[in-house]
C-alpha cells in the first residue's frame, strides 16, 4: 500500500511533464491511473477506462496550474476524477441495480478469520458491498482507501468539513460490517 508511486522522483517528473516531455506525463499516468480506474470502477462508473483517460487529459490540460507535493498532487488528481465521475452520472448513465450478495461464505475459524475473509471477498463482492453503501459513505471510504487521501484532503475534495468526513467514514465502516455480518461473516 505505498503512497509514493514515483520512487522519490515526483518533483523531477512533474517539472518534465510541465515542460511537455512525453515520458514524464506517461510516468504520471502509469503511476496513478491504476488507483484512479479502481476508484471509478468501485464507484460504479460504466466506462471506467474511458473515464480514466478523460481524467488524465484534464490533468494534462491543467498541469501548469498545479503547485504542491506528491500527496497534494494525488489529492488533486482524485478531485478531478471525482468531478468526472459526477459529470458521467449527470450525463445520464445509470448504475445497474445492485445484485444480491453471494452467500457462499463458510464460517471461518477465529484464528485465521482475516485471511479467510480476504480470500472470500472477491472483487465482485466488494463492488456489490460498495453499491449498497450510501453515496456519501462510499465516496469517503473509497477516497480514503484507494485514493489514500487524508481526512482533510477528502474533506477538501468533497467540500465537507473534516468532522463530517470522520462521521461518514465511521458510519461507512459500520455499514460494511453490518452487511458482512448479515452475510455470515463473523465480526
Amino acid at each position, binding site marked *: 500500500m505505498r503512497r509514493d508511486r514515483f520512487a522519490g522522483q515526483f518533483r523531477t517528473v512533474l517539472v518534465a511533464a510541465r515542460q511537455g516531455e512525453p515520458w514524464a*506525463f506517461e510516468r504520471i499516468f502509469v503511476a496513478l491511473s491504476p488507483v484512479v480506474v479502481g476508484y471509478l470502477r468501485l464507484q460504479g462508473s460504466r466506462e471506467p477506462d474511458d473515464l480514466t483517460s478523460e481524467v488524465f487529459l484534464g490533468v494534462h490540460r491543467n498541469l501548469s496550474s498545479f503547485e504542491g507535493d506528491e500527496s497534494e498532487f494525488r489529492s488533486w488528481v482524485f478531485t478531478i476524477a471525482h468531478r468526472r465521475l459526477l459529470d458521467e452520472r449527470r450525463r445520464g448513465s445509470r448504475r445497474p441495480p445492485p445484485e444480491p450478495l453471494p452467500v457462499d461464505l463458510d464460517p471461518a475459524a477465529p484464528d485465521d*478469520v482475516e485471511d479467510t475473509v480476504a480470500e472470500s471477498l472477491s472483487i465482485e463482492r466488494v463492488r456489490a458491498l460498495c453499491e449498497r453503501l450510501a453515496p456519501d459513505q462510499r465516496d469517503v471510504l473509497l477516497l480514503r482507501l484507494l485514493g489514500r487521501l487524508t481526512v482533510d484532503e477528502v474533506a477538501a475534495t468533497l467540500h465537507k468539513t473534516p468532522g463530517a468526513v470522520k462521521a461518514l467514514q465511521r458510519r461507512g465502516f459500520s455499514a460494511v460490517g453490518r452487511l458482512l455480518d448479515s452475510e455470515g461473516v463473523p465480526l
Partner: protein
Amino acid sequence: MTTTGDDGLEMSRGWFADLSDENTIEAIVQGHEVDNHLAPLAAFARRVQSEGDGQAPPASATLAALFVAPAARPLVRKGRRQMVKGQLSSVAAKVAGLGVLAKIGLGTSIAAAGIASAGAAGVLPDRASHAVRGAIEVVSPVEFQEPESDPPTEDRQSNFGDRVSSDATGESDGQHGVDGDQISDEAPGAAHRPADPGQGDPPADPGQPDVTGQDRAGETPAGSHVPPSTPGGPPTSTTPSSTVPPEAEEHAHS
C-alpha cells in the same frame, strides 16, 4: 447496552464501539494490525486497496498521443493554419451536435445571407438583383442607387476626362493651365454651345459712364414721384471728388 438509531444494531456489538476510536479506523485504513474481531473490516479495506494495484488501463487515442509526441506547450503559439484548422474542426463539431431543425435553420440562414450578399454586390441577374436589393432596403437602412441602364450620351461620355488638353499641360503654348475661354469639344454640353460664345447678345454694361439709376428712375412704377433733378446732382464718377477737399486732392496728385 442496546441503543436504537442508525447504528443501533451495531451498538450492541463490541466492534462498533471500537470504530468510535479514530485510531482504530486509521489502523484499518493504513493496513495496520487490528483486533481479531475487526479482521473482516480490515480484509475489506485491503481488498478495496488492491483494486489500485493493477496495471494501468488502456489509454484513449487522444491521451496516448500525448505519450509519444512532444506535447504542445501552453505558451507556444499555434500557426495560423493550425488555428484555422482547429477553429473549423470546432465549428464542424458544434454543427454536428445540432438537432435536425437547428441544422435546417442554420442552412437557410447561410443561404439567405449568400443571396443577399450576391444581390448587394450586383452579380445576380437584373430582375433577381432588383428584388434582393428591394428586400434589403425594406429590412435595413441601406439604400442602393439604381444602376444606369442608358448608354452613354454625348454629354456623358464614358471616357470623359481621360485626355488632357495640350493647352492645359502647356505643350501648345508653353504655359500650364487653360489660359483662354476655349472649351474642349469633348466637354459636357458641347453640342449645345454656340460656335462662338463671344458673338451672342452682349449683356448691358453696368459700368456705362454717364448713365445712372437716377436717370432711369422715371421708368419705374414710382417714376411719377421722381423729382426732375436731385439737389446735388448725380455723381458723375465712382470717386465723389466733390467730397474731397481741394488741398487733399492736390496732395494726392503731388
